[in-house]
């Protein structure tokens, strides 16, 4: 029987720190830059192991993105990190001009994405970072659900030639995958199959989606759950197949509804297989300070709300 509950695992940012250590040994050209948040982003682990290949740029995200572009143009493979909101919002033009437009091999790994960072409040909560990353042509945009996915996708991004964005979280994440599970840019994972509806999610909400499927199963609905960890390129084939089979789709993400996974999936399915769709995400609002779980509940990003959205989608089937 497919799982609806998962043991608590490490935060995806911890997996990032671990992956960098692994990559540092394999890839002498790998360098890591941070903007005075290395303890939080976990790049400090890399600094300890490879001090000559780590640069703290200070609280200057725009400068950091530009420096990374210069390093990449000189044969290095730079990872740059900060909180999702700071890096994507403050360095967006630099990512546009110096990385995306010239298609330079820079990897952007952001942590503390979403509202699940909790008490620090909205100024620190990245809720528009995926939309911004998707607005950078040529970027691979990756949102891993747990530590295994995060580690594998950081490695995949490092080996990918071209810019990549990886979204990581502060909170401990449910361990959705077994170690050794494989992930690739452009891929997706079907956690469980179903016939009545499909829930597409990524990041922290994959586990919530699986829980929601359990709730719905008790009501007699058979629900497919897809982890769309690669928002761009999106696994459109798998999503269209799921939509065709189930006839109703919910997309859930820890992000503003505007411009994130939901809009990408909707765009793909509108073309390939239009079905009733519902969306779970932050609806035109910032969140607030509070405990991570309290916030997810208050802003309706948890399993009961995803299940409710699925019921609505199913009810709209012709």
């Amino acid at each position, binding site marked *: 029987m497919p799982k609806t509950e998962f043991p608590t695992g490490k935060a995806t940012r911890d997996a990032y720190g671990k992956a960098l250590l692994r990559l540092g040994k394999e890839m002498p050209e790998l360098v890591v830059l941070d903007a005075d948040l290395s303890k939080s982003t976990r790049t400090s682990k890399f600094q300890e192991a490879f001090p000559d290949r780590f640069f703290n740029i200070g609280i200057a995200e725009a400068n950091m993105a530009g420096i990374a572009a210069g390093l990449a*143009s*000189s044969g*290095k493979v730079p990872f740059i990190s900060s909180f999702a909101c700071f890096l994507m919002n403050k360095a967006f*033009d630099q990512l546009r*001009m110096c990385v995306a437009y010239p298609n330079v091999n820079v990897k952007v790994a952001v942590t503390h994405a979403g509202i699940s960072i909790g008490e620090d409040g909205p100024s620190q909560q990245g809720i528009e970072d995926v939309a911004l990353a998707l607005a950078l042509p040529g970027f691979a945009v990756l949102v891993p659900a747990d530590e295994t996915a995060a580690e594998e996708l950081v490695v995949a991004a490092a080996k990918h030639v071209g810019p990549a964005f990886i979204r990581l979280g502060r909170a401990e994440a449910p361990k959705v995958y077994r170690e050794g599970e494989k992930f690739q840019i452009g891929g997706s994972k079907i956690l469980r199959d179903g016939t009545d509806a499909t829930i597409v999610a990524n990041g922290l909400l994959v586990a919530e989606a699986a829980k929601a499927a359990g709730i719905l199963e008790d009501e007699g609905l058979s629900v497919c759950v897809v982890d769309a960890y690669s928002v761009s390129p999106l696994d459109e084939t798998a999503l269209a197949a799921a939509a065709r089979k189930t006839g109703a789709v919910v997309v859930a993400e820890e992000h503003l509804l505007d411009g994130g996974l939901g809009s990408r999936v909707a765009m793909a399915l509108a073309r390939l297989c239009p079905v009733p769709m519902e969306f779970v995400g932050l609806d035109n609002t910032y969140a607030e300070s509070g405990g991570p779980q309290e916030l997810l509940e208050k802003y309706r990003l948890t399993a009961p709300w995803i299940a409710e959205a699925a019921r609505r989608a199913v009810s709209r089937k012709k």
Partner: protein
Amino acid sequence: MPCDSAKLELLKDKARAIRRWSCIMTAEAGSGHPGGSLSAADLLAVLYFHVMRHDPANPGWPDRDRFILSKGHACPALYAALYEAGYLKGVDLKTLRKLGSPLQGHPDKRKLPVLEASTGSLGQGLSVGIGMALAAKMDGRNYRTYVMLGDGECDEGQVWEAAMWAGAKKLDNLAAIVDYNKIQLDDFVKAIVDLEPLEDKWRAFNWDVQSIDGHDMEKIIEAFDRAAAVRGKPQVIIAHTIKGKGVSFMENKVKFHGVAPTKDELTKALAELDRA
């Protein structure tokens, strides 16, 4: 590097060629930024024909000196310098800004791979230059990285983020050149945001600072030679220049920051440049 009178003549010829092309290209395009191209012409001539170590037959040479035109709008002058140096074989300079041309309105490294960076959104080139200088240090290469900034561009906060970091990290293989032509798009620099005291600003960020007449070939050469010998600090050359230099009716005119000469104006401009 010593410079004899024959070399000085060559540099003056190259600067004249860069100015001629800057006028021709922008006139042909019907748009572009002639003023800041003309102000930078002498500096570019010295960089590409005297100071920088580079090889047009091997543009990807890992040990080449790097040049980034952070004030990307002056790209007609850069394209002309590259062309005169023997790059851009088979490229028609008169296609500037035209559909399908590698000579984009602002530098595009993807369409013109000989460029070191894509620029045009101001304030970013110095950061990219830091990355290149840092890579040289890491790899034990002795190339130098040169970044040309506009004066108006120094309004951008990122310039000072970069200046602070490069100064603190003693990146002595990095040099900035400020093309201080005193005019930005809307008005004179002094009227928009006065940069003075500009030398003190760079000095406070731990840079080696020189101020020169950016149209005096010998002074430009001396400044670059001196900068290259500095250890433990990045270097900035504040080049006092004249916007539109070399064409009397363009000199010191705010209008010619971003307006191309007409066909008649081009004829007059070329006649003046040829007489000089």
